[in-house]
């Protein structure tokens, strides 16, 4: 031990004498980082921070270098989405005048994704749906003319905002149907308890021009769909509690429903009781037509249980391409996931401990595990 000590001492001493020859380090100047050009392997990680729920935040994370690039404040029980051009993050959230109590202010905040600085806000009526993050808490029209915000008081409606002029244009009642699923420049669909979609078409001023109720496309009693739909090329895709896939084509004036199909064989469904589950229950690579679903074995009441495997399904053939068990990587149940949209895609998977695993989305090879990237990571958005 003593020799070790002396050894170390001499070593450092020698180093010091030796290096005195080098010039001193230059003076530094404190600056503020800007973000480089966006990368498809970046991801917006929505941390609901349930244990400190007024302090939700969004982390911008680099899935190639496994580094945090920056952070966006997200308030209480936020909805988060991006503008169609990816240039703006919108945070629909609720603040209280005294931190966790006092006067409630609902607001949409606009963040410049190049600087992560606030560029403005729109104050809402205190009706914003306080619920878990999905693509449909707030959403832009395809041309960015309108921004829609889901309201639940518990009466349901939605707000139509003008993001360019930072103004509220109006509120449209949805007769018990919920969330804002945007399509085209002026259509908003909401999901109804009857298994139908209510579609409201807006006029140039963002007021209601017409509304139509679709036929039922699912049964809320026997096999409800998760509200966490994912964007497809023609609209959105919804997975049901029992593993049915409902593809909704919103490219026309009214929704069109493809024939639902199952990601489960009869045995997997009825004997083995495999089920989708979590807070975000699907991710889709639109170019490859590959659907990624966190699956677990369970039944009634387990629809929020995380996946012990990720199943990869070809949305054209409906065939399962792969099963990726997570126990092999010592990963806990996966409650949220996302896949990048480039040709060398990576998949992000958040466990119920909010460890975020990064996989090669083609091979399922685990590339990295980022420990506790947040407190309760329940949603990811691609840049």
């Amino acid at each position: 031990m003593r020799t070790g000590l002396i050894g170390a001492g001499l070593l450092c001493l020698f180093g010091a004498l030796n290096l005195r020859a080098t010039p001193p380090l230059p003076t530094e100047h404190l600056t503020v980082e800007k973000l480089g050009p966006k990368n498809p392997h970046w991801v917006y990680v929505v941390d609901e921070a349930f244990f400190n729920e007024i302090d939700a935040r969004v982390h911008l994370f680099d899935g190639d270098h496994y580094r945090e690039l920056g952070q966006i404040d997200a308030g209480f029980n936020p909805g988060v989405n991006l503008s169609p051009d990816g240039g703006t993050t919108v945070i629909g959230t609720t603040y209280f005048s005294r931190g966790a109590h006092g006067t409630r202010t609902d607001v949409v905040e606009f963040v410049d994704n190049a600087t992560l600085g606030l560029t403005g806000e729109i104050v809402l009526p205190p009706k914003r749906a306080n619920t878990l993050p999905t693509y449909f808490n707030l959403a832009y029209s395809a041309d960015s003319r309108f921004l829609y915000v889901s309201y639940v008081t518990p009466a349901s409606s939605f707000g139509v905002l003008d993001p360019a002029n930072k103004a509220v244009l109006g509120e449209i009642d949805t007769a018990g149907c919920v969330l804002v699923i945007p399509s085209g420049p002026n259509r908003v669909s909401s999901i109804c308890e009857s298994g139908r979609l209510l579609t409201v078409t807006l006029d140039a001023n963002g007021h209601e021009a017409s509304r139509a109720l679709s036929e039922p496309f699912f049964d809320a009693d026997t096999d409800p769909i998760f509200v966490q739909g994912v964007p497809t090329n023609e609209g959105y895709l919804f997975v049901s509690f029992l593993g049915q896939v409902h593809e909704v084509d919103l490219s026309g004036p009214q929704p069109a429903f493809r024939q639902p199909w199952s990601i489960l064989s009869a045995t997997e469904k009825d004997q083995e009781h495999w089920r989708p589950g979590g807070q975000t229950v699907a991710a889709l690579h639109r170019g490859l037509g590959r659907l990624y679903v966190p699956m677990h074995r369970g039944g009634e009441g387990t629809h929020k249980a995380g996946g012990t495997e990720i199943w990869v399904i070809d949305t054209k053939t409906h065939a399962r391409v792969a099963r990726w068990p997570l126990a092999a990587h010592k990963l806990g149940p996966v409650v949220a996931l996302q896949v990048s949209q480039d040709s060398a895609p990576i998949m992000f998977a958040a466990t119920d401990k909010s460890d975020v695993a990064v996989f090669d989305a083609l091979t399922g090879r685990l590339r990295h595990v980022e420990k506790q990237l947040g407190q309760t990571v329940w949603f990811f958005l691609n840049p």
Partner: protein
Amino acid sequence: MRSIDRLFEDSSRSLARRTSRRSVLATLGRMLTGAALLPLLPIDRSSRGEAAEAGASASKGAHQSAIDNPESCEYWKYCAIDGFLCSCCGGSSHSCPPGTAPSPITWIGTCRNPNDGRDYIVSYNDCCGKTSCGNCECNRNEREKPMYRLSRNNDVNWCMANADANYHCSVSVILGVSEQ
């Protein structure tokens, strides 16, 4: 009894240990499907076989105290609760902690009491107006439905209509017996 209470409370207090709680829940629902009367025990979710084994090998006493313990996520009345148990926050299974306000609006569920075999209708209220309690996080979802069936949904903040709309913790209040 005391020791088991703490076990549950500790496991939910610690962010790092939330998994154990969640895995209980995943298991729970599955086993209800598989065998409605099989005792529900904290077990690995990776396969029914393992689950059953773990179940069989675990102590019935611990299970019994859990389903009768309002500070445990396994308490029978909590079959579709989602949030922090007010019992661990200064309240009880049917009272709000000091200084908080009950949510006037709520949603209704049905839970079976294994002690008398009856199904009880319960009201899941939130207690509101203070910041997240953070103790005994519990997420169970028996017969819970997505947001479009709001009266059966536990994903929304039921403090939404309170003067102080912040969510603190959740209770489960017996409204009566469900007769079928």
